[in-house]
Every structure is written in structure tokens, then in C-alpha cells.
């Protein structure tokens, strides 16, 4: 299978999560102490690398490919549906979009209420918040890298894709020195979600015994089918919300006129 199969979703998912982690790290560094925040980031990244190395290698070495594809395909399907449905609801306006500037402001306010930064040595709050932020945002990426990488036999390219995305976002963060609120997070999440559902369907299907008649070309057909359905779902959800709002508005106006 083409290495891009594992690299692209790992890169995109990692970029989205890295943007969210960058907001947390920036808020901690600016409000409290950069040194402790960066130690927190380094420790978080080390734990994530360990998780990917241990689970990825163990899965590749010890789990038979048939069982692997069924289990991982099912997990990708479940996880991909979560990402896609949330992205559809956000695009339709039924769910609030991620606003990095707003999240940054709220976190900054909370951090200022914490105990003052010690004059000497490390700041435990900065370390803990940065560590937790990187680890929690990164766990989703680790999951995608391990599942995609091991199923496609491309663990290293997937990990490399995720690393490149993290480094790119970090570099942009250093240059602009503020939250990256202009990154189209929701669009990226929609694309990653569609890829997860596509490969989830393909691999789980193979796992239960489906021999896809069109081979790897099926992946492209599934992407087109799911992406088209997703776009139609956004359009329908928007129309549905608009109709309901208008009805409510009309009913409220009629009530006020009485």
C-alpha cells in the first residue's frame, strides 16, 4: 500500500491537534513560565513517542493481520464517525466552532488566578498544564498513527507525518507568537474524519471476509461516496436549522402581534 495512505491522515490529524496544543502552551508560556512549559511539552511528546513505539510495534509483531484489520477498522470507523459528525454539525452551525483566540483568553484568565510563579526553579503549574495539554491532544494523534501505521504496514511514515505536522505548527507558532485561529480546523477535521471512515470501512470489511472486487480502487470510491454524502449532510443540516429558526421566529412574531 502507498506510504501516503498512512502519512496524509497522520499529518492532517496531527496538524489539527498541534494547533490546539499550541494554544495551551502559548497561554502557559506567556502567562507563567516558558522554561517549565517547554519541559512539559518535551515530556508530553516523549510519552506520546513511547506509546506509539510500544503499541505500534507490539501490534505489528504480535497481532495477525486479519484480526488487526477488523479491530482497527472498527475503531477507525467509530472514531472517524465522531470526527465527521462533529465537523458536519459545526459546519452547519448547530455546534460552536473551535475558537483558538477565545480558548486562549479563557485559559490565560484561569492561569493568572493560580498561585504565583516561583522566583527560582521550575513552575509546577506551567509544567503540568503544558504536559497535560500536549498529552491529551496528542493521544488522538497517537491513536491515528498506531492504527493507520500498523494496518497499512507504514508505522514509521505515519509517525514521520505526525512529527512533521507538529514541527511545522510549532515553527509557525514561534514566528507568529499567538494562537493560530485562522487554520481551518473544522475543514481539516472533516477531511480526516472521511479518511478514517473510508479506511475503517475498507479494513473492517476485509476483516469480516469481504473481498473488495475493485481492490485498492475501492478506497477512492469510498472517499468520493462518503465525502459527497458528508457535503450533502452539511447542506441538509443547514437547511433544516434555517427552516426551524424561521418557524420559531414566525411563531414568536405571531405571538407578539396578539
Amino acid at each position, binding site marked *: 500500500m502507498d506510504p501516503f495512505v498512512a502519512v496524509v491522515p497522520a499529518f492532517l490529524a496531527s496538524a489539527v491537534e498541534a494547533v490546539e496544543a499550541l494554544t495551551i502552551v502559548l497561554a502557559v508560556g506567556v502567562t507563567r513560565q516558558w522554561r517549565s512549559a517547554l519541559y512539559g511539552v518535551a515530556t508530553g511528546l516523549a510519552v506520546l513517542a513511547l506509546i506509539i513505539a510500544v503499541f505500534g510495534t507490539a501490534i505489528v509483531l504480535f497481532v495477525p493481520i486479519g484480526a488487526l484489520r*477488523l479491530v482497527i477498522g472498527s*475503531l477507525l*470507523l*467509530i472514531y472517524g464517525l465522531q470526527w465527521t459528525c462533529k465537523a458536519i*454539525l459545526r459546519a452547519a452551525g448547530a455546534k460552536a466552532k473551535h475558537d483558538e483566540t477565545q480558548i486562549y483568553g479563557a485559559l490565560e484568565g484561569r492561569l493568572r488566578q493560580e498561585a504565583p510563579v516561583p522566583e527560582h526553579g521550575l513552575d509546577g503549574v506551567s509544567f503540568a498544564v503544558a504536559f497535560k495539554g500536549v498529552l491529551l491532544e496528542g493521544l488522538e494523534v497517537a491513536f491515528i498513527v498506531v492504527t493507520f501505521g500498523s494496518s497499512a504496514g507504514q508505522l514509521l511514515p505515519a509517525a514521520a507525518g505526525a512529527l512533521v505536522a507538529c514541527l511545522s505548527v510549532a515553527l509557525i507558532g514561534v514566528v507568529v507568537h499567538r494562537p493560530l485561529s485562522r487554520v481551518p480546523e473544522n475543514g481539516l477535521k472533516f477531511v480526516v474524519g472521511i479518511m478514517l471512515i473510508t479506511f475503517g470501512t475498507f479494513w473492517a470489511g476485509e476483516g469480516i471476509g469481504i473481498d473488495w472486487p475493485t481492490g485498492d480502487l475501492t478506497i477512492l470510491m469510498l472517499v468520493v461516496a*462518503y465525502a459527497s454524502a458528508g457535503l450533502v449532510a452539511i447542506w441538509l443540516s443547514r437547511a433544516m436549522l434555517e427552516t426551524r*429558526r424561521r418557524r420559531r421566529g414566525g411563531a414568536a412574531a405571531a405571538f407578539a402581534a396578539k
Partner: protein
Amino acid sequence: MSYVRAFGAFLYDFLIGDAWELFVGPIVVLVVAWSLIQAGVAAVVVGVLMVVGVLMVVALNLFLALRGSI
């Protein structure tokens, strides 16, 4: 014990979260697809039905979410 409970809560949130149908739906789709394969239904038909099943799960989730959004 509290670590186990915290890990359980994390796992629940990670896989199920606030939309149970997105966890149960794909499992039901796969069980039905597997049963059809065992019954000797052609792979291509099962594949198409699987995709339809996944899209029905999306529709169910959006319906439930939109119903409660306004």
C-alpha cells in the same frame, strides 16, 4: 482505584463520548455485514450495504443532534 476509574472514564469519553449511536451503530453494521457474508451473500452487495449502514448511522446522529440543538 481512582486511577482505574479515571482511565475508564477517559476510555468511555474517548470511544463513546456524548453520542452512543456512533459507538453502537458501526458495531451493529459490522455484525450484520458479517452475518450476510456467512449467509453467502455476494461480497459486493455486503460492501454496498455496509456503506449504506454507515451513512444511516451518520443520519441518526445528525437527526438526534439537530433535534436537540434549537
